[in-house]
């Protein structure tokens, strides 16, 4: 993965929209008639060719945002241009230049893989002369050439998902939306789909994907936005977001859950951690973020030993995106997240 030019720095900002962006959304909002604010004040600027990830828990507004960007929903406020076209004014042009894969697999089970692709070619008006070759090309891309003439209802979940992805690409869209592309797939199928997403992006297609899997965003995306309760709470490259966490992560596990609270007290009393680190209890384990994790670890082990606490495992690792969530949550607790949104939301 080549990092984009805007990769560095905590205050990571996308370049100002110049009309050439694949997605340029300004203060996008969707409020349902019942008052539910599914998406609030989302601004995005995604350059062509980028692989952009929208990361957030269930119900955060990821799918709603994708539907707003792909013309399936009308925003109640804000403007969106996709591939240079206004989503509200020129929806047909937007639809013709984007591919869309919904979270739930969408294939016609009565039709074969080839027929599904053929229908998609027809629907997007792919030039007749190109169709046969493009269908074969896509069947190869998603490894379904062997079962091209089998009705899709006989496919496994992973195969259907891959077929779904292929049908979103028949018109060689400039931009493809993938809504939680690997949800419900087994690890093997997920890794294969990751490969296809990378291949698609390598071919020059801008990728916009949503995910709950942090590893997935880390693997596939040049840049991320973290969304929660319909609002973007963080954005940056995976690297910058990890740096945001503020150091390495030291994880200590114990025999039984009873020791962990006592251990947390001891850790908080350790000089190095008390001055420049944070201590959390996460699923029965101690999770300490500090810039000096490696130096701290032996001191902490000795201190725990002295108090008679048995340590069953210790691990120092680079921060994951999960740790980003913790960092954001910490800031919110500290009241930092109440800073005006417009500032770091661009």
């Amino acid at each position, binding site marked *: *993965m080549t990092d984009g030019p805007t990769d560095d720095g905590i205050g990571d900002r996308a370049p100002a929209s110049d009309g050439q962006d694949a997605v340029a959304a300004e203060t996008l909002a969707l409020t349902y008639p019942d008052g539910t604010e*599914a998406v609030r004040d989302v601004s995005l600027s995604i*350059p062509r060719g980028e692989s952009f990830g929208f990361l957030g828990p269930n119900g955060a507004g990821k799918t709603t945002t994708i539907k707003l960007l792909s013309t399936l929903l009308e925003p109640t406020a804000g403007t969106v241009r996709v591939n240079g076209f206004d989503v509200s004014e020129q929806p047909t042009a937007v639809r*013709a230049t984007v591919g869309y894969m919904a979270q739930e697999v969408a294939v*016609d089970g009565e039709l074969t893989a080839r*027929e599904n692709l053929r229908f998609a070619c027809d629907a997007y008006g792919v030039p007749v002369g190109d169709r046969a070759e493009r269908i074969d090309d896509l069947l190869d891309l998603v490894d379904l050439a062997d079962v091209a003439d089998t009705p899709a209802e006989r496919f496994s979940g992973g195969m259907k998902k891959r077929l779904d992805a292929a049908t979103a690409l028949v018109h060689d869209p400039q931009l493809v939306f993938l809504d939680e592309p690997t949800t419900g797939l087994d690890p093997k199928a997920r890794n294969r789909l990751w490969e296809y997403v990378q291949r698609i992006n390598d*071919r*020059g297609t801008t990728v916009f994907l949503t995910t709950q899997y942090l590893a997935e965003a880390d693997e596939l995306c*040049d840049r991320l936005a973290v969304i929660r309760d319909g609002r973007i709470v963080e954005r940056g490259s995976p690297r910058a977001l990890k740096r945001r966490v503020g150091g390495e992560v030291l994880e200590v596990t114990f025999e039984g859950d009873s020791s962990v609270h006592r251990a947390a007290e001891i850790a908080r009393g350790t000089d190095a951690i008390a001055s420049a680190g944070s201590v959390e209890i996460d699923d029965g384990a101690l999770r300490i973020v500090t810039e000096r994790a490696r130096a701290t670890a032996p001191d902490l082990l000795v201190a725990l030993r002295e108090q008679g606490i048995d340590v069953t495992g210790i691990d120092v690792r680079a921060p994951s995106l999960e740790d980003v969530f913790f960092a954001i949550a910490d800031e919110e607790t500290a009241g930092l997240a109440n800073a005006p949104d417009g500032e770091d939301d661009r």
Partner: protein
Amino acid sequence: MSAPGADADALDGVSPTDGGDTNRNRPGEPPTGNSLLGDVRVNFARWNRKALRNPTAFFLEIVAGVFSLVLFATVFGDVSEVALGRVGYGNVAYLTYLLPAVLMQATIGSAFTSGVGLVGDLESGMFEKVLVTPMSWTAVVAGKSLSELTRIVMQLLAVLGLGVAMGATIETGIAGIVGILVVCLLVGLLFMSVANILGILTRDEEALNAATMLFMFPLLFLSPAFIPLSSDLELVAILNPITYGVEAVRALVLGEDTLSVIEVTQFGGLYDTLVPAVAILLALDLLFGALSVRMVSRVSSTAAE
């Protein structure tokens, strides 16, 4: 992954079919997609292909029609001819009298599969997938409906052919058969609309199949489909759309005015039945068609939930 802003064309070597930039649209020139007729054809082809993949339902409709024809003619034949004589159809064979009823039955049964198709698309996600294509929504609906109407015509021709082979007569000839098909399609459109509305309300194929029976037989029996109605039932029949379908088809089969529920005289002969019946069916088609289109578009604009 490629750097932002990398020119896509530089990567064309990866996929040779993308060469020549035939389909990748450039900003500033809105892509056109297909023509409206092209979109209709695409959807027409999809639904035809799906029907061919599962031909049992198609043939079952024909079998059900023929079955009814044989069954009713055999069981009620003699009794009915007495009844027919009493209301002035003494010279009409019951089989001929029955033919419009069986055509209506085949039409309604087949029209309800339209709702089944919609439910299938809503469940499989194809509904939303079609929505994000540049195809015109009108063309999507038209293509699907045309495919269903084509199937109804084929089933009607099969039932009609078998009916004639069994001895039913059509007084108005080829022009009459075309007219019969047109009337049946008007009834078909009405029940396709009803089926789509029910499909959206229930989102359940089973419920829809049950609803087919629930609609079909009461409506047929509460019309002059199988036997001339007693005057007690005429009040109900006047509100029953099937009455107008059956009477219009029957007028074309017999070549005379058959409409019993309302009195029309100014058009002359079979047109005294045909004109009011077709007018009523057209009005109902517009009403229910508009309602179903409205409901389907509401589903499409709230696809997020």
